[in-house]
């Protein structure tokens, strides 16, 4: 192969170091310190299996319609491998984004694994989220076994179920959202018509997201209050969906028609459509993080507040 230098690019130094460390462990060697390198830190050996071959799945959820792709590690040859490591179980750490985790800042502490897609989360385990979501490091501690995470570059959701029907906490960059111009639109039909139809049915997000949300059909909203989320000043609003007229069923609908709010369209078309039904309730926080407006939704479900309370935002 000619001209490899055409596309050579050095990744983030932290990522390169952590990956080297991981590889040394996989090889059964002690880490070999390079001149000037920091002392290696222990690998946090939890996370997805290497070569687990998890089945690909797609979720079109009802409350929040999530569409993500499993990180299926089974591959074509070469490289369809299960790492026969001397350390059991044969798992490795997904180093994920290269960005330095701001919390904890002490480099000697293990870095939490990246929030996996379509895999059950473990109680008591901390997960980190791509820095691109809010522009800073973010991690949370999962309170219960069997919840699921749905990350993408501009947002993430933790749901009580694998289908995303029972979301607990969602964090998203407001700028990445588009809002349905008609919240009672038939989202199933629109999404079936493709990206162009979704784009046509939605608009750029409002500056005042809470006011927009409070005006949705059926919403009984509380006062907008000054609050704090993860140590940052925020505006907060509680809400509950009461009765509304019209609308259409949406996927997984078991409690009547849906109100469609937002479509998150990430770069890979793996975004989600958020829909709500009568009885849904929660609190939405709007936080300004370095000029980026971040929307956090905490639903009234067991474990949701605990998950939200565990969120730590770093530098």
């Amino acid at each position, binding site marked *: 192969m000619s001209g490899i230098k055409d596309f050579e690019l*050095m990744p983030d130094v932290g990522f390169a170091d952590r990956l080297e460390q991981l590889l040394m462990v996989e090889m059964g060697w002690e880490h070999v310190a390079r001149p000037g390198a920091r002392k290696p830190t222990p690998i946090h050996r939890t996370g997805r299996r290497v070569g687990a071959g998890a089945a690909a799945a797609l979720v079109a959820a009802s409350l929040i319609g999530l569409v993500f792709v*499993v990180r299926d590690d089974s591959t074509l040859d*070469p490289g369809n491998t299960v790492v026969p490591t001397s350390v059991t179980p044969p798992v490795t750490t997904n*180093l994920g984004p290269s960005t330095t985790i701001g919390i904890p800042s002490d480099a000697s502490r293990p870095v939490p694994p990246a929030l996996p897609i379509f895999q059950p989360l473990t109680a008591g385990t901390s997960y980190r989220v791509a820095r691109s979501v809010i522009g800073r490091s973010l991690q949370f501690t999962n309170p219960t076994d069997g919840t699921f995470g749905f990350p993408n570059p501009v947002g993430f959701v933790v749901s009580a179920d694998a289908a995303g029907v029972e979301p607990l906490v969602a964090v998203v960059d407001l700028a990445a959202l588009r809002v349905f111009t008609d919240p009672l639109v038939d989202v199933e039909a629109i999404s079936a018509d*493709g990206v162009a139809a979704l784009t046509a049915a939605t608009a750029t997000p409002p500056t005042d997201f809470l006011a927009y949300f409070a005006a949705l059909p059926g919403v009984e909203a509380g006062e907008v209050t000054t609050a704090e989320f993860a140590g940052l000043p925020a505006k907060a609003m509680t809400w509950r969906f009461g009765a509304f007229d019209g609308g259409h069923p949406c996927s997984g609908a078991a409690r009547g028609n849906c109100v469609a709010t937002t479509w998150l369209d990430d770069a890979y078309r793996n975004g989600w459509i958020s829909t709500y039904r009568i009885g849904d309730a929660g609190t939405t926080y709007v936080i300004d993080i370095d000029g980026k407006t971040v929307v956090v939704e905490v639903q009234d479900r067991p474990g949701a507040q605990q998950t939200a309370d565990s969120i730590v935002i770093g530098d």
Partner: protein
Amino acid sequence: MPQRGPEHREDVSSPTGFSRFYREHLPAVYGYLVRLTDGDSSLAEDLTQDTFVALTAELRRDKPECADVRWLLTVARHRFLDHVRREARAQRKLRLVAMAPVDEPSLHDPGRAEVLAGLQGLEPLHRAVLMMRYVDELGVPEIAEAIGRNTTATNSLLARAREQMRRQARHAT
């Protein structure tokens, strides 16, 4: 980067040798994946990790011949194609795929530099086939095998990819 023949074998049997090999070829693997992923550094890092972990697995199976940058790039490409396939499955299920109309086919192939400069913003599979054809210099049958299509479909895909790249370049100017 000096080219090595198949007879050359990197010494990766020791931690020092492995570290040297890793440090030497990491930029190629990562840079290759950054191109394929259209600058998604997080995804590129994930796939880079998968690629090198696959290497460790092969080395532990006593296959030192895998310690070759060409092997690494092949694995990296497969990892990316796996990702694209998963994405495509999701898109099909959602019926969100909007096939772009194909303009009249171009009469000439793009050069390597044109491809490397024009990948940004292309659809993932288009990036992959253009990289394979004009950067990795694979033949159409090899690409067809890699992406699981026949040669006719692969040629059509390559034509669409070229057209998308050129249409995008025209819009940019």
